[in-house]
């Protein structure tokens, strides 16, 4: 982040390259403006007028603070719908097994479904490297101090992936059960991953994320015999915050339950192609 003028986040990188060669913002007219910051920061922002000499007046602004992110997200969603791409925003706390789940999913779909991955982490390209080792295309977004991905970063990453029609795009968000809930990326839906080594009360402690997700994957189920984790209770808690959430029990490590997850993906892809063939824009609108 530039603390001088507040523009962009200078420490955000996409595959190691600075993500902000230019500055973008949504104007009051709703149009996305892009421009390069050519003026020097610092002194150029100082004003020479004496404070307190002008009368104070009130301006009614009435603008949503997330309007800029939402405009990029709407742009992404239109692009995904146009290309017939199923974009899923994978969210969880750190260490729930998202990357392992993705690696196993990619291995199972290899040669059957086109797919690509956008990896979001504060630092390192370790996760993108794990994905690329499977042969799948992956772009790493490093958010620096940022605790979540935003729609603009996703848009900047998309040209690097060249997705074919009917492709799956997995967006692995930064491990965090709070902040990513507020930022729409333009995805078809959020998939929340919860591992059985976490508590059954996670859906109640972080209700926004579980309420925003369409599917919950309960991961690491191979560990259940060694734990006191109560599966029925976590399902009950998830449904208390989101009565319509779908729930699948899986183990990325042992492969148990993975077929149900692959079937869910196939069903979503099929529904997407039907929607695209009908020209039905509303088919994949997410529930936010």
């Amino acid at each position: 982040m530039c603390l001088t003028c507040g523009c962009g986040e200078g420490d955000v990188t996409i595959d190691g390259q600075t993500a902000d060669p230019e500055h973008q913002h949504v104007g009051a007219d709703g149009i996305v403006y892009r421009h390069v910051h050519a003026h020097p920061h610092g002194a150029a922002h100082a004003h020479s007028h004496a404070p307190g000499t002008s009368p104070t007046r009130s301006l009614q602004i009435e603008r949503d603070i997330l309007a800029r992110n939402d405009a990029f997200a709407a742009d992404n969603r239109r692009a995904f719908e146009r290309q017939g791409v199923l974009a899923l925003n994978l969210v969880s706390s750190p260490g729930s097994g998202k990357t392992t789940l993705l690696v196993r999913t990619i291995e199972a779909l290899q040669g059957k479904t086109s797919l690509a991955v956008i990896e979001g982490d504060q630092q390192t390209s370790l996760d993108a490297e794990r994905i690329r080792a499977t042969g799948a295309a992956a772009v790493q977004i490093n958010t620096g101090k940022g605790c979540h991905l935003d729609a603009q970063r996703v848009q900047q990453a998309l040209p690097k992936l060249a997705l074919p029609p009917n492709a799956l795009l997995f967006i692995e968000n930064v491990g965090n059960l709070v902040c990513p809930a507020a930022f729409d990326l333009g995805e078809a839906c959020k998939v929340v991953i919860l591992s059985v080594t976490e508590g059954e009360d996670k859906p109640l402690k972080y209700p926004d994320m579980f309420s925003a997700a369409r599917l919950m994957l309960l991961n690491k189920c191979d560990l259940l015999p060694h734990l006191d984790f109560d599966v029925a209770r976590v399902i009950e808690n998830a449904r208390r915050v989101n009565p319509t959430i779908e729930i699948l029990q899986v183990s990325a490590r042992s492969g148990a339950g993975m077929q149900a997850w692959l079937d869910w993906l196939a069903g979503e892809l099929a529904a997407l192609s039907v929607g695209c063939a009908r020209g039905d824009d509303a088919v994949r609108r997410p529930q936010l």
Partner: protein
Amino acid sequence: MHELSLAENLLEIIEDAARADGFQRVRKVILEIGQLAVVEPEAMRFCFDAVVHGSIAEGAQLEIVAVPGSAWCAPCAATVPIAEIIAVCPRCGGYPLQPTGGKELKLRTLEVE
């Protein structure tokens, strides 16, 4: 701490308004933050002060208007107050419950000169 991104977006909206209106300095910023908007007012204040440093909003007072959470309960056929995202009605225990207020995250007013 996504309040940092929100504060940056807020400053952009303020700078857009300054370009459109021509004001030189912001004295007060009035935000509407809903109880269900996943935003901590104290974190928002901290990030706002950091982000506006050196900008036309430096030193501006940040006023936060809290909007209470509410939801439509189908069994009660009424709007009920809720303090957090939950699926069951705090009054009758039934569902579905559709949030109707408290998700606001809006710049309402600027006092400028």
